[in-house]
């Protein structure tokens, strides 16, 4: 019964069926399945399969996004049922805080990167668009991420990345958190110039960079 439910959860994700994933999550709770197992061995497994398909050029981004959405909505059902202790032990690759910088409302690139990171196994906290310098700093203190990812689509807004980094330095937070940047006008040179730790040229590279940044040095 449990194995079947886990497989059904995985199939709902690989079959891009959001509604089914949510219904199955509710069913799993009723059947007494451990919600952590339902996430790890059901939903996340499915998302990894779709992620592999995408990496192999066999799946489209929309399929990956729907798979991730199915996982997200099903997790909203499962998470409240996870005991506090288990929550702390929940295995994620790392925690990453992402957002588009102040004055910039371009969402899509940042969201795609967020999905890719989720698929790769990161816990992603998405602050959305037009995120002020203060909000980046305050949220960093609050959620204690391993990485902050900042996105910008315009040369006029990318300068805000520098401001965030300056304050992180001043507040002594840089020891605990790495910073990566991305978006069309940014480059490796820009990342070096503002003293960021990494730069992703596209969503796939962003994931590689994030993985490297959390490796114990």
């Amino acid at each position, binding site marked *: 019964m449990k194995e079947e439910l886990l497989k059904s959860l995985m199939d709902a994700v690989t079959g*891009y069926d*959001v509604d089914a994933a949510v219904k199955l999550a509710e069913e799993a709770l009723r059947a007494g399945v451990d919600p952590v197992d339902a996430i790890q061995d059901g939903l996340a497994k499915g998302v990894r399969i779709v992620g592999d398909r995408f990496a192999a050029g066999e799946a*489209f*981004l*929309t*399929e990956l*996004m*729907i798979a*991730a*959405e199915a996982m997200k909505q099903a997790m909203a059902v499962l998470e409240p049922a996870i005991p506090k202790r288990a929550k702390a032990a929940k295995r994620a690759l790392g925690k990453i805080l992402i957002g588009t910088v102040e004055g910039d*409302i371009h*969402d*899509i690139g940042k*969201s*795609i990167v967020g999905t890719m990171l989720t698929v790769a196994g990161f816990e992603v906290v998405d602050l959305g*668009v037009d995120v002020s310098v203060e909000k980046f700093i305050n949220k960093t203190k609050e959620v204690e991420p391993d990485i902050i990812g900042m996105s910008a689509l315009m040369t006029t807004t990318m300068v805000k990345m520098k401001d965030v980094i300056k304050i992180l330095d001043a507040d002594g937070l840089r020891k605990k958190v790495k910073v990566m940047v991305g978006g069309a006008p940014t480059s490796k040179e820009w990342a070096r110039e503002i003293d960021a730790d990494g730069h992703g*040229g*596209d969503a*796939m*590279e962003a994931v590689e960079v994030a993985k490297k940044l959390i490796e114990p040095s």
Partner: protein
Amino acid sequence: MWGFPRETQRITFSVLSKDDLEAIHWATLDVLETTGVRIYSEKCLKTLEEAGCTINHEQHSVLIPSHLVEEALRKCNRTIRLCARDPKYDANLDDRHVYITSDGNGTETFDLDTGQRRPSKKDDIVKSAIISDALDAVHIYWPMVSSQDVPSHIRHLHDLEASLANTEKHVTFETTMHPKEAQYQIEMAATLVGGRKELRRRPLISSLHCTSAPLQMHGGCLEAALEFAKAGVPIMFMGMPQLGATGPVTLAGSMVVSNAEVLSCIVVTQLTYPGSSVVYSGSGAAFDMKALMRAGGGPEHALTCAAFGQLSRYYGIPSIVGGFVSTAKRPGAQASYEKLTSGFPAVFSGCDMIAGIGLVNDCTTLAFEELVIDAEIARIVFRLAQGIEVNDNTLALNVIRKVGPGGNFLAERHTLDYLKKEHFIPELSDRRSYESWLKDGAKDIVKRAREKAVAILHKHQPKPLEKEVQRELQDIISRANSDLAEH
């Protein structure tokens, strides 16, 4: 249904008005009645004479009265099925589909391993047939080069053998210049379907015959066409005047010359074997007065080919025209833009068959890379021709409302449901980011195409012919080897 379905085509293209078409038709009748054509076959001239044409036997020339032309057009088979080893690949020339045919009978090949240009070999046919078999955008296979590594008197039989053995799609060819050679080709195709009677029902082959501009027809070529018609094998006649050299410099004038040549052949065919299946073809490439070369990739050729497609529809006969042609020496920028501009008018005007993909240097040189690139171009053109579908589902009000300002449409079911219907999905074009492209070796499209061609050859294997059929084909070729050597 196999082929590009015209029912999904929203954008159409008319090069000529109805009045233009009639003007070309009337001008052609005038040429046939008053100037006439030369046909170098006593047998065919006799047939024409008996039907009431005026013949000058010394000149091999014939004046054909209009009523014979109109009658012949009425007698032509209206819909033609070009059958394939695998029936799912049957091509119905029914005015509702467009079929892409690999281009035929070059004499040079860019070697896939060395990249060097060299005379073509039988193995090039094997390889190009396998690749064509694998590519969805290639619907009909035409042996792309000649097997110049076998004796010339049985070369075309080897061409056919290599084609039939390495693709399950319909095979068309154009090289038959003698009725006796045609008999052997018919026998070979009949072997695959189980006899001549069955071949008439399921013609696995068709044969294209080119006229000799201006206003002439080779006797052996026409008699070979009649041999095919007798066996129920669809035939095609193609006029190929070069604007300014073997035809008038004007597009309309050369269309008249080409049309007169083709219609005279159709008259002979329908007088000899009434009701036989004839596919109409014409072309009008410019003769480049500085390069002294035929300009198959030029806009004149594109326009006349699309116009001939219209003319054939006006006659109620299926058409094959040139398209996706280039005079560029090898794959690259010029090849790509000429292929595109010479291909899309023929698709937009709804020609039944379009031949040209895979060869460069004006249909003389096979480049495996080009075959793969052209298949991608053809798919792009198909998507262009489909235009924009507008209805409640595509207007997408529900999903617009759901996503609202500032969201995105990536994770929406509507996106998944319509993606493949609405978007052209590249199979070759490189749309990756600069970084990904760089990391992957910064390859240009020709290199990518070569890799794809090699990958197809590694993994694709068309269903082989039965052992017994293979043996019989070999027998036919060895019999022909001694029989045809004499002429």
